[in-house]
């Protein structure tokens, strides 16, 4: 395989919608999409069928292609749209965040999940970054917003957003994952697809200022051992962090994927705590207080603590350990028949870079090393791929990652043996998908 193989999302110029060429209402030919990864001449499949799978079976493509069939020609002869001030995606695209509207949980404190199956590469579009709010998304005027740093410092400071932007900046690509991601899977298969089971992780390029720099600016006192970070959302969500982490790699960020943070991601500023559970990455950051102990806020005592079988609860379980899953094919997909496929997925670790990802096609009997898309970045989503010639028989497929510390992603049984099924958070176990003989892909997790 080429180390830099073609991304399915970048359609070449020769791509054309041709309503006649494919079965059913879905129509597409994309000659060059397949050439780098698929040798169609030796495929047992008809070319159209393998392409159809390759291009995606999700509702997005289905809707797109159906829409095209109704509005020919695909190559317009009239003039297209003029330039515009702010871009938007093609109207054929339908990938969205998922959230459950039929729940007793108010949507202001709900979560929405990234469509992991339908994203390419390692960056999550800001508009598809997962959400978890505690009292809704506040509308904050950046010209009126300030960050106050006080407590055990010599010079308490109020800093404006503009002042923050004058300080030395840095950009880092990091994943951000809610520690509740995968919590549906503790007793085996809980959710039907990758988005609903694991969509509480996203990866962005974040730009901002080192918190260590800001604490130095304030004259951090040696008795300061923890910080409390607090949001400007109506409930003033707050979390404590040890000073060692605060001085290490924590940032106050204002940029996400090249533009200001989205409101859902903490506009105008948020804390970014690389590799640690999402909840500590306090959004709409308004205050950092240096303390000599953790504040024991609600979200670090009654929530985000991991209940063990003996009734004790682990507290300050900040780190997100290594995790991976195959995102295509994944739950909800249907493979049209035996033949050549590309498996792809994401791996990440809060402990550093991903060292390697192994994929099993036989339920864990044998493992094959997958190719990693470079650059492989520390504490970032890492894209892996593997070619697979499916023989058309039922198969259990899964990925297992190892990070640079040597930590290996565990099986669900291994996690449950230690933690039981009530710890809720930090389920980073191996995700099993079953590919049925009928091609249907389902969640095959089992306790």
């Amino acid at each position, binding site marked *: 395989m080429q180390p830099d193989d073609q991304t399915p999302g970048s359609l070449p110029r020769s791509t054309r919608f041709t309503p006649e060429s494919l079965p059913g209402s879905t129509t597409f030919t994309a000659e060059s999409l397949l050439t780098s990864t698929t040798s169609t001449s030796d495929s047992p499949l008809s070319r159209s069928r393998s392409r159809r799978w390759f291009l995606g079976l999700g509702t997005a493509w289905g809707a797109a292609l159906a829409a095209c069939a109704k509005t020919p020609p695909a190559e317009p002869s009239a003039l297209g749209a003029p330039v515009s001030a702010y871009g938007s995606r093609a109207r054929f695209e339908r990938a969205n965040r998922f959230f459950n509207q039929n729940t007793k949980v108010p949507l202001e404190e709900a979560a929405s999940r990234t469509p992991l199956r339908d994203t390419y590469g390692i960056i999550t579009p800001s508009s598809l970054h997962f959400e978890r709010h505690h009292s809704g998304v506040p509308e904050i005027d950046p010209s009126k917003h300030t960050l106050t740093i006080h407590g055990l*410092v010599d010079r308490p400071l109020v800093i404006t957003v503009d002042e923050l932007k*004058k*300080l030395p900046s840095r950009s880092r690509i990091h994943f951000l994952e809610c520690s509740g991601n995968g919590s549906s899977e503790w007793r085996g298969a809980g959710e039907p697809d990758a988005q609903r089971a694991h969509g509480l992780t996203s990866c962005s390029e974040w730009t901002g200022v080192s918190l260590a720099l800001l604490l130095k600016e304030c004259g951090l*006192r040696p008795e300061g051992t923890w910080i409390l970070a*607090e949001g400007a959302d109506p409930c003033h969500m*707050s979390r404590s962090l040890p000073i060692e982490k605060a001085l290490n790699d924590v940032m106050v960020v204002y940029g996400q994927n090249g533009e200001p943070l989205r409101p859902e991601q903490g506009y105008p500023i948020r804390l970014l705590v690389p590799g640690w559970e999402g909840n500590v990455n306090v959004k709409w950051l308004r205050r950092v207080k240096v303390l000599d102990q953790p504040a024991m*806020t609600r979200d670090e005592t009654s929530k985000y603590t991991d209940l063990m079988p003996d009734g004790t609860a682990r507290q300050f379980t900040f780190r997100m350990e290594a995790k991976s899953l195959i995102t295509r094919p994944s739950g909800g997909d249907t493979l049209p028949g035996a033949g050549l496929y590309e498996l792809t997925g994401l791996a990440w670790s809060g402990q550093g870079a991903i060292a390697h990802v192994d994929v099993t096609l036989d339920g864990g009997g044998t493992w094959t090393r997958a190719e990693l898309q470079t650059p492989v970045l520390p504490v970032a989503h890492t894209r892996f791929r593997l070619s697979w010639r499916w023989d058309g028989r039922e198969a259990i497929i899964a990925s297992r990652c190892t990070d640079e510390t*040597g930590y290996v992603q565990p099986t669900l049984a291994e996690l449950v043996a230690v933690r039981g099924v009530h710890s809720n958070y930090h389920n980073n176990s191996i995700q099993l998908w079953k590919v049925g003989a009928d091609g249907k892909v389902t969640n095959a997790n089992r306790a």
Partner: protein
Amino acid sequence: MRIARSLAVALVFAWSATIWSTKSFAERQAETQPPPFGVGRAPTPAELHEIDIDVLPDGRGLPAGGSTAATGKDVYARRCVTCHGPTGVEGPQDVLVGGRGSLASAVGGRPVKTVGSYWPYATTLWDYVRRAMPFDHPGTLTTDEVYGATAYVLFLNGIVAEQDVMNETTLPRVKMPNRDSFVPDPRPDVPAHKPEPQKKK
């Protein structure tokens, strides 16, 4: 003579070292390291008073005031009952009462994590009610209403008596039933998957 002179020199050194050490680390840092960028301004006392709302387990941050469960029952009925139910167990939102003894798996059934069965600090309840409750109008309770609602939820859990006054002195002294059940993060905890020891070159 020589010894005396050495002694004098040593004394001067010791004295100056004493002077040095009476200055705080921060003062020394301030002397030697001025703020590198000089951004921002000092908050006014009024600004800090407005924003500095956190309450620590030892009671630091609790404002003067106080109330009892008997009084707080009315606050609960007006501001809490819709989401948490008449006795704190009905929901539809978080269950506040009960669940004692349900946490260990050996008990069987689902653990019921409530203020009474799970929360380790009474001050956390006060802090959370003040900053985040009621859900649709956070931050609108008066100080005494927060003390009252806190007292009432503790009373419903059988942790304080109905007439116990909860204030900035008494609340931090309330020992929550699950206080000693929290442990530090022991991960990596899955034996076969711990990182291999790093070989030193």
